[in-house]
C-alpha cells in the first residue's frame, strides 16, 4: 500500500488563498486505508480549511468528494459535473491521484493535500512502516523475505554495518536492523549460506535509474 500523511495546514492554506471555491477530493484506496485521505479526512480537512480561511476573512466554499480510486481516469470523470463550479482542486490522494486530476482538468489548478510517503505495511493499528522501494528487481527471494533496500538505512546488500546493535539500526532504537532480521530469517530457513554470497553492485535501472518507468501488458494494452 502507498502511505501518505496530510501536509501541514499552513502549507495548504497558502495554496488555496487565492480561491473562493474549492473541490476537495479524497480517494477510497490506499490513503483511506492509511487514514490520510479517505472520506473522513476529507471532511476534517474541509472543516479545518474552512475555519482557517474564515479566520483570515474569507468564506471559502469547499465541496467534498471521495473517488473510488484517483489513479484511474474513469473514476476521475465523476468530477466532471462539479469541476466548473470550483476554482481549484485539492487532492488527498497520493501523488498519482494528484497528477491524474491535473492531467484530466487542464487549466484548473490542482494541489496536493498529502505528502506521499512510501510503500509500506501496517504494523498494527495506526502504525505503518516502509517495506518496499519499488526497485524493479526484487531480491527478497535471496534475503529471507526482508528487503535491505527499503529497510536498511544504508541500503547495504552484503550484511550489516558496524552500527547494528541489539537488533536495531544505528539510526534509532525504533528501527530494526534489516540485516539482523534477514539473518534471523536465513537461519530459520537453514539458508545461512546465502549470506556468504556477495551480492554484486545493483543495477538501478529497473528502479527508475533509467527514467520514469512504464509497464505495458501487451495482451491488455490497446
Amino acid at each position: 500500500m502507498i502511505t501518505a500523511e496530510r501536509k501541514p495546514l499552513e502549507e495548504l492554506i497558502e495554496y488555496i488563498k487565492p480561491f473562493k471555491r474549492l473541490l476537495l477530493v479524497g480517494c477510497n484506496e490506499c490513503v483511506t486505508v492509511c487514514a490520510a485521505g479517505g472520506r473522513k479526512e476529507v471532511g476534517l480537512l474541509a472543516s479545518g480549511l474552512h475555519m482557517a480561511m474564515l479566520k483570515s476573512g474569507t468564506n471559502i466554499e469547499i465541496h467534498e468528494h471521495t473517488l473510488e480510486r484517483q489513479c484511474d481516469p474513469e473514476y476521475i470523470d465523476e468530477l466532471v459535473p462539479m469541476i466548473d463550479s470550483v476554482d481549484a482542486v485539492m487532492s488527498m490522494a497520493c501523488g498519482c491521484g494528484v497528477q491524474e486530476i491535473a492531467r484530466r482538468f487542464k487549466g484548473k489548478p490542482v494541489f496536493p493535500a498529502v505528502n506521499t510517503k512510501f510503500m509500506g505495511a501496517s504494523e498494527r493499528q495506526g502504525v505503518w512502516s516502509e517495506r518496499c522501494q519499488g526497485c524493479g528487481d526484487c531480491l527478497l527471494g535471496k534475503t529471507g523475505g526482508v528487503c535491505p533496500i527499503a529497510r536498511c538505512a544504508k541500503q547495504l546488500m552484503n550484511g550489516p554495518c558496524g552500527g547494528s546493535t541489539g537488533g536495531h539500526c544505528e539510526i534509532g532504537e525504533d528501527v530494526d536492523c534489516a540485516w539482523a532480521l534477514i539473518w534471523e530469517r536465513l537461519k530459520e530457513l537453514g539458508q545461512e549460506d546465502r549470506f556468504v554470497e556477495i551480492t554484486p553492485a545493483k543495477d538501478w535501472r529497473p528502479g527508475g535509474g533509467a527514467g520514469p518507468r512504464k509497464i505495458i501488458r501487451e495482451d491488455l494494452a490497446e
Partner: protein
Amino acid sequence: MENFEPVIVAFCCHYCAYTAADMAGSQRLAYPANVKIIRVPCSSKVDALHLVKAFEKGADGVYVAGCLEGDCHFKNGNMRAARLVESVQKYLEEIGIERERLEMVMMSAGMGYRFAQVATEMTEKIRKLGPSSIHVALVGRESTLQPAGII
C-alpha cells in the same frame, strides 16, 4: 463582545457523564446554561469530525466526557476518546483555535457534583478565553444578523 456567553457542547457518554448530568439535575446542582449535552453511547463514539464540525459551526468550547479510567462499559473506549481529543487539539492549533477550547474529562455516573463543577469551570475558562475566532468570524460575516451567542 461584551457580556459574552459562550456556547459549549458536551458529548457525554450515556453510562457516566450523561447520567451524572441527570444526577446533577436531581440534586439541583446549578451550572451555567451554556453547556449543551449531546448523548453518545460511549465517549469513543465521538468522531474527530463531530468535534471539528462543532467548532466550524461556531462552538466556543467543546468537551468529551467519558467514564473514569478502567470503568468503560466497552473496555477502553474512554481512553481512545482521550487520545482522539489530544489529536484534535493539535489540529485545532493548526487551524488557529486554542487547544484549551477542547477537553476530555472523566467522571462516574454518580458524580453529579463533578458534572456541575466541570460545566462551571469549562464555562468560566471559555468565558475568559473569549469567543472562538470562528465564532467571531461567523458573526462578522453575517453582519446583518443578531450578534451571535449573546442571548
